[in-house]
């Protein structure tokens, strides 16, 4: 197969950070190359340089033998480089078709050419198995559908190299399978794919070759057929990573109970029943958009039951709010750490006291105790191994894993009895994932009740003592560890579990 | 004669504004004659007004002209601080014996306004006169009231439409307001603001000017105007200042017709088109006013239709 892409000596600094350090590799037509590395290793930066989004300080990008002018996404697109960004680049208020057509015709032409565009989009959807409604507003789409739009955007422009930056981080297992099918179709038609993921299983499943970055430098390159997950992990982190042991649970009393609870909104909960016991981890499996948000919001204090009864430590919820939830000892790890879990422009100190700034020791009679706050932040940084320059660093400068560690520290410090963990490991590298898992297990050992909402079935099955599936706001019955197969769980997640079982 | 004295003026609006414009013209004329050395600041907000007064006072001005209306109290405080300097201020208040260097003036041109009222009523077919003003302040109100009195003296049944546009400089708005009045039956407009003449011209109705003579621009439209001449006021003040005799006095009378402070603009293009009866009435009142046997009432209250 012919070489389609070559990176030569790419180097890039952001101020003091050396994000890419003299990286070189090549890619052939019809090949899938996986790019691996911890959070902050420089994967996204490298791809942004390849795509012309950033300009490298040194090095060249060559596509099909022709060097790309640096810093021009237009030229990269023209040369056949398509990129699906880690954070999607879609205009939410515009339609799918508009997003796909954007920039594909000369700006000053008088016609939009919507009809031809629509036809071409339909053709591509069919060919690659990427079904979307061209007239849907992007903001109304699920994450998986949005990703399909992103891929279609690249294919629409005749991409020969397709870059997928952590495409599976937000996908359900089914969606991941569909994506892999698409990738296989694409390589079969001669495309080359760069695939970035933290999930080694996926990498082994889809990639032909693997390039591993550590602290900005390329540390290894191997054929996936000639390696295994342990060797990849070791090359990535520099040490072996062992998943935590899961000792048997010691279930205690019920700390939180839902009895046929429904909430407003779509999809809200529908007559959901659930019991969180001390000393157990309760997992919720489901395709995103099936009411997980409502369940998490209910436990967080953002939602209230409109029907049914919710009980906290045996009593009703009362006037329910986030502050009540915090006060009742519920630790909440939100799904979206950037938008909900942290205030990007605040420093670590501010973020560490976000939930209890209003009471001693953080403040007295309305006056903040800045020394206490700083001490708290320093403690969390030390105890939860948050890698950062110090408590006065704006949290936006932290990697996702370190941000998540600070949030963990914030909510776990007080020794909460109930823990909500919504997608706690999304986007984290393998080291950070292991860390989060250890923390949740430690809390369980302390006697906390943990509600784990995740789209990662491996994670769920490894950690959960009890699993529910959620579909369209309805919870399945509780299944104890080992009581249900992946296949059965899948049926429950699709809403067909009850029927089959009956 | 002697050397020119240093005169400074502080205006709250640009010199295009008619009221201020008349002062400015008079001052420039005095400067051209060599009587004064004139400098001015325009569009000074009232928040900055006393600072600018002080600056001129510090800078060696011998006579300062301005508008104290909205800053009466503060302006008097400034004058008290500089007893050597003459302050000639537009003001609705009388002079204060205790403040010897603070004299007042205003545009007391009700005499001429009254006469234009007679002419307006005589030239209106419908007996419906539209009046567009900026703000209902005394300087505007007294002219409007005198005008209305004049019109009623000729035709007691004259109807008026009165509107204020809340701005000194929005000719398009003044024009629209005038259009509405024309549509509502006015065939004669009293133009306190720029823009009114234009509406009259466009719709072929007549108009009366105010403070300045605008007939040259609107020969078919402007029948007559009540003119303000600031020269008598200024010349009296300059003479007093030169003689070191400037003192607290009311210069308002220098705007009266008998002092030449106001006049009826020549009928010009409308010469001979006035009904004889009206012409005679104008002549009659003018003589009485000049002779002091008739006094046009000074009414500062907001006019209403």
């Amino acid at each position, binding site marked *: 197969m012919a070489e389609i892409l070559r990176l030569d000596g790419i180097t890039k600094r952001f101020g003091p950070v050396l994000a890419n350090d003299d990286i070189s590799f090549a890619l052939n037509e019809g090949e899938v190359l996986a790019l691996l590395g911890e959070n902050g290793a420089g994967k996204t930066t490298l791809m*942004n340089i390849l795509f012309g*989004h*950033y300009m490298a300080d040194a090095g060249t990008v060559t596509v099909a033998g022709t060097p790309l002018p640096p810093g*021009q*996404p*237009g*030229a990269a*697109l*023209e040369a056949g480089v398509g990129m699906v*960004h880690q*954070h999607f*680049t*879609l*205009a*939410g*208020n*515009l339609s799918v078709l*508009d*997003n796909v*057509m*954007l*920039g*594909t*015709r*000369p*700006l000053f*032409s008088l*016609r*939009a050419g919507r009809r031809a565009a629509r036809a071409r989009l339909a053709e591509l959807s069919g060919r690659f198995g990427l079904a979307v409604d061209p007239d849907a507003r992007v903001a109304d789409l699920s994450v998986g559908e949005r990703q399909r739009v992103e891929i279609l*955007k690249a294919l629409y422009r005749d991409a020969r190299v397709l870059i997928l930056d952590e495409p599976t981080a937000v996908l359900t297992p089914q969606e991941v399978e569909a994506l892999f099918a698409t990738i296989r179709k694409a390589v079969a038609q001669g495309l080359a794919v760069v695939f970035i993921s933290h999930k080694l299983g996926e990498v082994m499943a889809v990639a032909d070759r693997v390039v591993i970055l550590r602290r900005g430098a390329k540390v290894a390159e191997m054929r996936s057929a000639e390696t295994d997950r342990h060797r990849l992990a070791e090359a990535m982190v520099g040490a072996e990573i062992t998943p935590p042991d899961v000792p048997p649970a010691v279930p205690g009393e019920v700390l939180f109970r839902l009895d046929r609870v429904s909430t407003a909104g779509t999809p809200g909960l529908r007559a959901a029943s659930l019991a969180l016991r001390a000393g157990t981890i309760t997992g919720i499996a489901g395709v995103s958009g099936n009411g997980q948000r409502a369940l998490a919001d209910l436990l967080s204090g953002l939602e209230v039951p409109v029907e049914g009864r919710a009980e906290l430590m045996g009593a009703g919820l009362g006037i329910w709010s986030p502050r009540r939830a915090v006060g009742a000892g519920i630790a909440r790890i939100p799904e979206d750490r950037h938008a909900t879990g942290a205030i990007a422009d605040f420093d670590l100190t501010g973020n560490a006291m976000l939930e209890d700034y209003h009471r001693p020791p953080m403040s007295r009679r309305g006056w903040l105790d800045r020394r206490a706050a700083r001490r708290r932040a320093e403690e969390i940084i030390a105890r939860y191994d948050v890698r950062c320059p110090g408590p006065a660093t704006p949290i*936006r400068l932290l990697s996702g894993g370190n941000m998540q560690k600070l949030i963990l520290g914030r909510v776990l410090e007080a020794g909460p009895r109930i823990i909500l963990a919504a997608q706690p490991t999304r986007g984290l590298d393998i080291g950070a994932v292991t860390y989060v898992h250890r923390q949740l297990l430690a809390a369980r050992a302390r006697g906390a009740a943990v509600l784990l909402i995740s789209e990662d079935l491996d994670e769920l099955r490894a950690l959960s003592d009890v699993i529910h599936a959620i579909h369209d706001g309805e919870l399945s019955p509780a299944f104890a560890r080992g009581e249900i197969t992946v296949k059965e769980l899948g049926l429950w997640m699709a809403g067909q579990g009850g029927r089959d079982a009956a | 004669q002697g050397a020119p004295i240093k005169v400074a003026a502080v205006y709250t*609006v*640009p*010199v*295009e504004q008619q009221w201020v*414009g008349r002062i*400015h013209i008079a001052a420039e004329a005095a400067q051209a004659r060599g009587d004064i050395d004139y400098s001015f600041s325009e*569009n000074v907000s009232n928040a900055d007004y006393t600072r600018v007064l002080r600056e001129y006072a510090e800078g060696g001005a011998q006579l300062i002209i301005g508008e104290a209306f909205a800053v009466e109290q503060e302006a008097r405080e400034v004058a008290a601080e500089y007893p050597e300097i003459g302050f000639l201020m537009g003001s609705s208040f009388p002079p204060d014996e205790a403040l010897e260097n603070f004299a007042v003036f205003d545009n007391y041109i009700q005499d001429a306004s009254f006469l234009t009222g007679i002419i307006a009523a005589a030239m209106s077919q419908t007996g419906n006169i539209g009046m567009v003003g900026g703000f209902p302040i005394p300087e505007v109100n007294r002219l409007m009231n005198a005008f209305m009195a004049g019109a009623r003296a000729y035709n007691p049944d004259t109807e008026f*439409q009165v*509107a*204020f546009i*809340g*701005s*000194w*400089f*929005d*000719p*398009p708005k003044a*024009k*629209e307001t005038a*259009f*509405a009045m024309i*549509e*509502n039956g006015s065939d004669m407009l009293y133009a306190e603001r*720029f*823009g009114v003449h*234009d509406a009259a011209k466009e719709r072929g109705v007549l108009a009366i000017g105010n403070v*300045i003579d605008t007939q040259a621009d609107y020969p078919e439209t402007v029948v007559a105007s009540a003119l303000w001449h600031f020269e008598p006021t200024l010349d009296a003040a300059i003479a007093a200042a030169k003689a070191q005799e400037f003192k607290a006095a009311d210069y308002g009378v220098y705007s009266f017709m008998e002092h030449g402070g106001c006049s009826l603009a020549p009928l010009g293009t409308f010469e001979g088109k006035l009904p004889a009866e009206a012409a005679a009435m104008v002549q009659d009142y003018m003589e009485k006013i000049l002779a002091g046997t008739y006094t046009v009432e000074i009414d500062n209250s907001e006019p*209403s*239709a």
Partner: protein
Amino acid sequence: MELFDILVSATFWAAVLRIASPLIFATMGELICERAGVLNLGIEGIMVAGAFAGWIAVYAGLPLWGGVAVAFGAGVAFGLLHGLLTVPLGLSQHVAGIGITMLATAATYFAYRVALPEVSSPPKITAFQPTGWAVLGSQTVLTWAALATVAVTGWVLWRTPLGLALRAAGENPAAVEAQGLPVHALRMGAVAVGSGLMAVGGSFLTLSAFNSFFFEMVNGRGWVCIALVVFGAWRPGRALLGALLFAGFDAFQIRLQQTSLGAGLPYQLFLAMPYLLSVLALVVMSRRTEVPAALMTPYNKGER
């Protein structure tokens, strides 16, 4: 004339169109800027500059359309300045806008004084004359041009690739960049052209509504246009409706003052009516789903 008679008279509707015309131009200008993601509070000053530039150009001998073009050019110049400050430099759009309004206004007055030091009453030009077409015949051709601007704005924004790119730049500039389009150039262009339209709106006052230039004659119309864009939910058609509604209130209050109903009330109440009713209309509509998502957010590649 009582209430109903006012509303059914053709002269009333003619007045509405006349009053609305400068607002329409400037509102379309602001709408274009905001659609591309840039709030332009320079509008009031840019209208002043346009009013002056158009008029002085005609006074200096250019034909009327030449005056309109000069006004447009003046607007573009100030727009480029606003764009430079807010787009590549990413300065606060509030501050830059207020600064531009101060600068454009003061520079205009200064230029006026320097150009015409000895005039006490500004000279007049021969302005656009009513065309006498159609029922609402007292309109000048510039009013029809204002209406055409609405259609063209709508067409460009929704039916051409350029319009799509501009709207996307106001929704998510990263998406525009990712499709190989220059975000900064698009935004700069939108601000420049939008400001040009604002200036043409200002020049309507001196070339059509009136025939000479006065200080302060723009008199807050620019601020009203900011409100009209929001009122119109960032859509040209609805913004046009808003402009007509506002002008309607204005024309109505002028007439209402002379009715038996209006006679006893303070004139300030009438002057406040268009503003109060605009606020009321906003409250009644109170939907803001359509706000361009990236409005007031500068785009800086690679920022996190």
